């Protein structure tokens, strides 16, 4: 139950915390999306065996988490199950590709292991970059940014609604769990038949609350498009942010920091 309460407050906190974090860096969400996309795209264009050139991307992501004040442990906690999925994608690479790639004093690392570590690192970088984007911009401003970038309105509205109604669903679930516990006399296991009743009740209650929210939106002129004035306009600082970021990404991709440093000495 505490877990569920924590999840609800964390989802609600996305906007609150983003307002705190975002007020320090007045950068348009649209420009953040562009930079994040280019950052990930440039990383993914490296060979799957190239772990050395992926490391600078990880360093940048770690620096960003410090800059926007999001603890790495928090991101790891939130993404661990997703990373498990990435782990399973890469898990068979060491078994399938045993060609020797690097020999360090007789210790041979195969291409399979290289690609395994690269995929894990890339997965972690991608998820962390997306988390930074959401947690520093807020979900609603991010959707506004997506609209600005001409991403279909239908998709953006769906995302906004999922974000709004997931809280409704979780709140209803919390209520059901509470009432089950209150009359469960410490019993934690219930027959499957009862679970089907719980789930049906959850859907009915969620639908009914969602209907009321929809009515309250319609009553104030909602026509399928959530409009706000608080969205940031594209400013000169956004252009500067994009140019500087693209230069950094370009450096990471084409000059490759480790190769660059190696050539210098």
């Amino acid at each position: 139950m505490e877990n569920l309460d924590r999840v609800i407050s964390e989802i609600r906190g996305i906007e609150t915390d983003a307002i705190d974090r975002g007020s320090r860096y007045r950068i348009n969400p649209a420009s953040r999306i562009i930079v994040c996309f280019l950052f990930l795209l440039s990383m993914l264009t490296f060979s799957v065996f190239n772990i050395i050139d992926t490391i600078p991307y990880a360093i940048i992501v770690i620096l960003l988490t410090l800059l926007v004040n999001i603890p790495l442990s928090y991101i790891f906690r939130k993404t661990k199950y997703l990373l498990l999925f990435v782990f399973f994608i890469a898990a068979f690479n060491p078994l399938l590709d045993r060609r020797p790639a690097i020999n360090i004093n007789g210790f041979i690392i195969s291409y399979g292991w290289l690609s395994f570590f690269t995929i894990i690192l890339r997965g972690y970088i991608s998820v962390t970059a997306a988390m930074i984007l959401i947690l520093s911009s807020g979900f609603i401003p991010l959707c506004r940014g997506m609209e600005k970038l001409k991403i279909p309105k239908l998709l953006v509205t769906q995302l906004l609604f999922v974000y709004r109604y997931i809280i409704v669903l979780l709140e209803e679930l919390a209520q059901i769990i509470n009432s089950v516990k209150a009359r469960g006399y410490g019993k934690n296991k219930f027959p499957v038949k009862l679970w089907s009743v719980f789930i049906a009740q959850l859907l009915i209650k969620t639908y009914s609350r969602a209907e009321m929210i929809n009515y309250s939106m319609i009553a104030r002129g909602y026509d399928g498009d959530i409009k706000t004035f608080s969205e940031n306009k594209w400013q000169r600082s956004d252009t500067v942010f994009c140019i500087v970021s693209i230069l950094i990404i370009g450096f990471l991709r084409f000059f490759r920091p480790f190769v660059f440093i190696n050539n210098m000495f």
Partner: protein
Amino acid sequence: MSHHYIKTENLEYSYYGGAKAIDDISFLITHGEKVALVGANGAGKSTLLMLLNALKFAQKGTIDIGNTFVTEKTAKFIRQKVGFIFQNSDNQLFMPTVSDEIAFGPINMGLPKEEVERRTDMALQRVGCESLKNNITSHLSGGQKRSIAIASVLAMEPEILLMDEPSSNLDPFSRRLLINQIKSFTHTCVIATHDLEMVWELCPRSIAISNGKIVFDGLSKELFYNQELLNECHLEQPYLAKIEQMKEAEKIRSAN
């Protein structure tokens, strides 16, 4: 005649596969009137308010709001004229910040930014919540949420206000603030409620509904003195009405 009136004639509404939720309801509420809509749970009060706000449409009968009949075509216009404050403020507030929430209606009305900002400030001032402008809606207390829900409707500058159980789930202090706020409104108000103490203070007229039908339409005082009718509507005589009735009885006795 002022345009701030509500006139319904032989209104009927049934939920799909259910009995009539609203059955042959006719009334006229004139400009500036504060009318209470009372009745047991499931009597049809909320459904009636939804019909008046063009959120649902009557299967029979007509609703005339300031010379505009409620139809699907006029729904958007009606919703601008008639503000609806929902029972559960949590369902009404869906934007991340208070200012976004209050600006939602005026923006949808297509008003320019300056006007939206003026209305937002005005609405916050009306409910005494100027300091909450940049707060996060989910962090507000129950009373504050109710005030912001009212402000979000006031910002649309409606001519008529519909309120569904406005005092439910409020602590006595917040309830008192709410009553004072409603007292200050010059709007035509329809308040669906079980809080008869509030009705006693705010609404000279009451409409009692039972099983979707109007069983009483007249002075609130008359309703509160009619124990049989109160019982029929699952209502309880307000304490203030009880004292008033006793005082009047005492007066008559001493006069005799």
